[in-house]
């Protein structure tokens, strides 16, 4: 898996390359780490890169396959690396010389355009819901709708069972501390602490904070959650890691019911995954929001 597999001019194509690319994509979709599948989907006639040409770009910048035309190859490689943290799946536009084109007008006005479909391939984001109560159930359900792989943990059989969570990939009934210690947490894991009480949430937070999750959120009022953070800071938990905890949890949409709270939490998680300002896009919505 090196950049020297195929020279950028496309000569000496390895006949086994398509199979190696397909196998790498399958592996990335199952276990990660993420990679970016880059496919030329349109190019001007006569350009050395033609529709169907493919290259994989790995997190460390290595590539498998190459796009013809060194300038295009380099530009796509850079754009692909930038796509990984955004989990992006999108078509990007380049001039035949490899200059990136952004904005509809730039693309429309360019005489010739190479279109490259760039897909970040990675395992589905995991949503670990700690606490199988009403809020946890609603969060899991919306998470599943959004395509996340949902895991639910509770220490009560009545709240951690298959019947209650038919949409979950994993339902874990067991001791919170022990199960959290052995649950794999990656940069694509989103942890939501919504258990029956802040004592359990505090215990849960202590077990997951600082382990590299994409998101850790904990439910509770401003006062309660501040107390929990103070306890953990006093117990020696890294202050910078505690600062990255989303607590109180969720976007401010004045959520009241468990389902509304779940919506606010998943909106916040989507914001973390995709970026964005978390504000209404319309002027009217902004006036309404700021009037509250």
């Amino acid at each position: 898996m090196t950049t020297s597999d195929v020279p950028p001019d496309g000569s000496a194509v390895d006949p086994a390359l398509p199979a190696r690319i397909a196998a790498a994509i399958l592996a990335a979709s199952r276990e990660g780490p993420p990679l970016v599948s880059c496919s030329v989907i349109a190019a001007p006639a006569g350009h050395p890169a033609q529709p169907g040409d493919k290259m994989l770009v790995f997190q460390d910048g290595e590539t498998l396959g190459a796009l013809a035309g060194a300038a295009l190859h380099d530009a796509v490689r850079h754009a692909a690396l930038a796509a990984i943290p955004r989990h992006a799946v999108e078509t990007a536009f380049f001039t035949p010389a490899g200059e990136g084109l952004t904005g509809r007008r730039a693309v429309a006005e360019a005489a010739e355009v190479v279109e490259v479909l760039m897909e970040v391939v990675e395992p589905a984001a995991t949503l670990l819901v700690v606490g199988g109560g009403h809020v946890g159930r609603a969060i899991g359900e919306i998470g599943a709708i959004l395509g996340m792989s949902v895991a639910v943990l509770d220490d009560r059989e009545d709240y951690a069972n298959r019947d209650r969570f038919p949409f979950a990939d994993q339902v874990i009934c067991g001791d919170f501390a022990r199960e959290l210690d052995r649950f794999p947490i990656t940069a694509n894991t989103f942890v939501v602490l919504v258990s029956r009480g802040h004592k359990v949430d505090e215990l849960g937070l202590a077990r997951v904070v600082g382990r590299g999750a994409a998101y850790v959120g904990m439910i509770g009022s401003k006062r309660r959650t501040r107390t929990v953070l103070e306890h953990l800071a006093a117990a020696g938990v890294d202050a910078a890691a505690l600062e990255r905890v989303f607590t109180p949890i969720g976007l401010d949409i004045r959520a009241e019911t468990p389902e509304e709270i779940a919506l606010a939490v998943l909106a916040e998680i989507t914001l973390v995954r995709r970026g964005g300002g978390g504000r209404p896009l319309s002027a009217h919505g902004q006036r309404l929001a700021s009037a509250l």
Partner: protein
Amino acid sequence: MPSDEVYRAIESAVTAGEPAVLATVAQTFGSTPRKTGAKMVVREDGSFIGTIGGGCGEAEVWQEAMEVLDGGAARVVTVDLTEPTDGEDKICGGVMRIFVEPLGR
């Protein structure tokens, strides 16, 4: 995000050299049933795995997929799902650009 089944079908078609076609949503405008990255694999016997949105859009892509299976080149197919109403701009539905490419060739 495409399912494990779709990635497996792609991998087995490519590895075994079984002719098949992969259709991937490359770009969408407006409201479309599936988003960029959705995939459908069409095999020579007409069976398919995955979906790019169903309905008439898929039927149009099917035609192109058969041409690609017959040795045609990879191409982008634009599927217009908007329904023009009398005297109105097309406002409902959306437009999808779908990349159709041969596998196992």
